[in-house]
């Protein structure tokens, strides 16, 4: 766990988060979303990226946070079992190598965050939570 690995630094629900670069395919802006009625609330819908259809995940819903209104949102795409998902975020800043370490003992993340976190790293004095995208998608329900 001591090696510095490339991560994308972003914000989700006002918190600083990290996505491992190995899990992220692209960073995209998503505006047109076709809803998927009757699916879980965290499934925001489908979107076309070039000729590919992706499932758009409402990350805020996964984390029991209030969702921002519809509109253009930034997302990272990731593939799980051959299906591509776009995971919406507040914002993405840049990519940089960081060292992810286990969370300080006793840190209470809350159930939803704890289920998707793999550790944390500190950048410019701010602690960032490292998120596993596959686990986030598995929580969609």
């Amino acid at each position, binding site marked *: 766990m001591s090696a510095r690995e490339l991560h994308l630094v972003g914000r989700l629900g006002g918190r600083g988060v990290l996505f491992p670069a190995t899990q992220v395919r692209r960073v995209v802006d998503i505006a*047109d979303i*076709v*809803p*998927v*009625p*009757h*699916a*879980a609330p*965290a*499934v925001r819908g*489908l*979107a*076309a990226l*070039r*000729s*590919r*259809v992706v*499932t758009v*995940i409402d990350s805020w819903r996964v984390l029991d946070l209030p969702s921002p209104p519809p509109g253009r949102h930034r997302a990272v795409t990731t593939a*799980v*079992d*051959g*299906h591509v*998902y776009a995971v919406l975020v507040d914002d993405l800043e840049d990519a940089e190598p960081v060292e992810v370490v286990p969370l300080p003992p006793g840190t209470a993340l809350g159930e939803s965050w704890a289920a998707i976190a793999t550790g944390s790293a500190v950048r410019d004095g701010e602690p960032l939570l490292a998120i596993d995208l596959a686990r986030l*998608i598995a929580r*969609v*329900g």
Partner: protein
Amino acid sequence: MDELLQEFIAETRESLEAIAGEVVAWEADPADRARLDAIFRFVHTVKGSCGFLDLPRVGRLAHAAEDALAAVRAGERVPDPALVNAVLAIVDRIGAIVAAIDAGAALEALGEEALIAALDPAYQGEKGIVPAQPATIQRGQSRSIRLSVDLLDRMMNGVSEMVLVRNELAHRLAESGDQAFEGALDRLSHTVAELQDAVTRTRMQTVDALFSALPRVVRDTAAELGKQVTLTIDGGDVELDREMIELLRDPLVHMVRNALDHGIETPAERRAAGKRDIGRLAVSAHQSGNRIIVEIADDGRGVDTERLVAGIVSRDPMRDAELRALSPQQRLELMFEAGVSSRDIATATSGRGVGMDVVRTNVEQIGGSIALLNRPGQGLTVSIEVPLTLAILSAVVVEGGGQTFALPRQAVHEIVATAAGATRIDRIGDGRIVTIRDRRLPLIALDEVLGLPVRDPALLAVLEVPGGSYALGVDTVIDTEEVVVKPASPAVMRAGVYAGMTLPDSGHPMLLLDAAGLAEVSGLRFSRIDRVEEEAPPAAVEEAGIEALLFEDIDGRRRAIPLAAISRIEPLPAASVHQAAGQHWLSSGGAPIRLVSAVALRAPADGWSALRLPEELGGAAYPVREPIDIVRLPTDIAPAAAPLAGVALIEGEAIELIDPLALGAMPAAPRLCLLHGAEAGWMEIFLKPAIEAAGYRVVRQLAPGEMAEVALAMDGEEEAGVETGRLLRLGRTPADPLYRYDRAAVVAALEEAA
């Protein structure tokens, strides 16, 4: 068989190339066990294939070499140079014969006995001399090559992707209003369509690939169980997507084993039940539209549903009351419940492999369905129905709750406008029932099921699902479209109402609805049994002589028709028969089918069946009150006038025998109705069933030389190039002379035009 032979040639050639090195190495060191094993495997495989393909010459050579090598492997023989030479000579000769078969040339069997004799340790011929090299045969022009399946899959994916890019391009161009690239885009569309078709065909394989393993499975399983079974295989030439074949392989073998293990009784039990010692198992495939139906029918004891229920209750006593309340068909469905082992279904022998629930899940995952027809004491028929291919689907695009969705064309039986007055909607409990032409169907509204803003449905799509039909209320029908279906992510599939997704020309992703899923989510429950076709009695093959089907004709007399003249037997619902142009027609989804009979036809009563004659005999249907039995015709048949082939004495009764050729020769093909213009797709959905019921065959394009009796076109549409006796124009508003939603008026106009 040709295909199998080609495969054998290709395989043998590849193996020969692969073992060429082994041969040389073995020659250098006859004690090398690994080389010996490789060559042994080769001759062993060749021998096996030869028995199957009926190539006795190659088979004899391979067999002799196998025996000699087996002796070496068992340590009974030392591999001396004479033996090595003799084996290598045989391997060479096998190569030469295979090349000759491929080239279609004859190769003289010269010296093959000597080659075999040379394997004998006591062989006294010229030791140490390699027998003459085989004559050089010109290598046949190979008409087939072997490709890895991965490569085909990549091609298919590439083409699917290309279709999507083409769609996007078309969309962008249409938006920009730029006409400059229209010609190029058309050419691209055309090429892509052809490519798509070609690639789809590369993925097709005959069902034989699936069926060829069955004789062995049946033989082995029957021997193991001490049962005697005759297997009949039919329809092996039906083509199916390769992927489908792979996905069907396990379910099919499972079903066949089940039939033998639990269905067909031991000879003693059969005798006691008044049956023949030898059980019958009939496996068949036939195509119906773009679906393939594979049937596994046995004449065993059927399923004892009482025992099935008792088995479940013994494990889960809480369910006793619930299960007791089920109908026999619902009880049969319990076979598909998770955790129900085949031990519950029959008796002694242990259930093996996967359960029926897994089989059903696997079949449903590929868009198929599975249905059971149980005749206690007489056998079980399992029908597995699957689509031809996975990737490309003809879809009806509908709108509900402000969003567009695709419905598989296959599931849409017809579309009816609620405003046309031909329908009536009633509330019943919390549900709704719609009456369409005396047919009552449960009604659900798409927007309501999906939790979207609700409006009164303007159109009803009558959907067929395994076990029944229901009406789905939608706001509008937009058009029909060929779509490339992509699997949706698990997060989407968990909604339970989608079968996949697609990206149409609009550039907006569209969800493909799952008709069965919508019914399920809405609480509609259908028994899967109701719709099952009556099983065609399995034909026996073990005895010589003509077999015929004895049936009760519509005039109450018993008659017989040669079994070979019947492609299948299906139920004949009274509502599906219509009279037009002095004939009776059966409409069952596709083109109308003419009814023929040896006696005067009349409207059918409920419970009748139709004997479907094969295409060569005109594909007509012969209505009967009831199929009775399969009988063997005596050799003495007294002559009679057409359409009778004669009169035969069967079980002491004089039975009239129908001459199928005389029936097929009866007059008249259905009249032709052409749907013309840009709205032909719309007409096909809305009007086709009604037009067909009026006795027409409906096409969107005429074959060369064909002329339509009537053509339908929208008002104001070009009529250039329409070869027709009469053109009917449909209006877009109720004020027009012939409003397009006024189905009754359209049908009346058609009758008049005839």
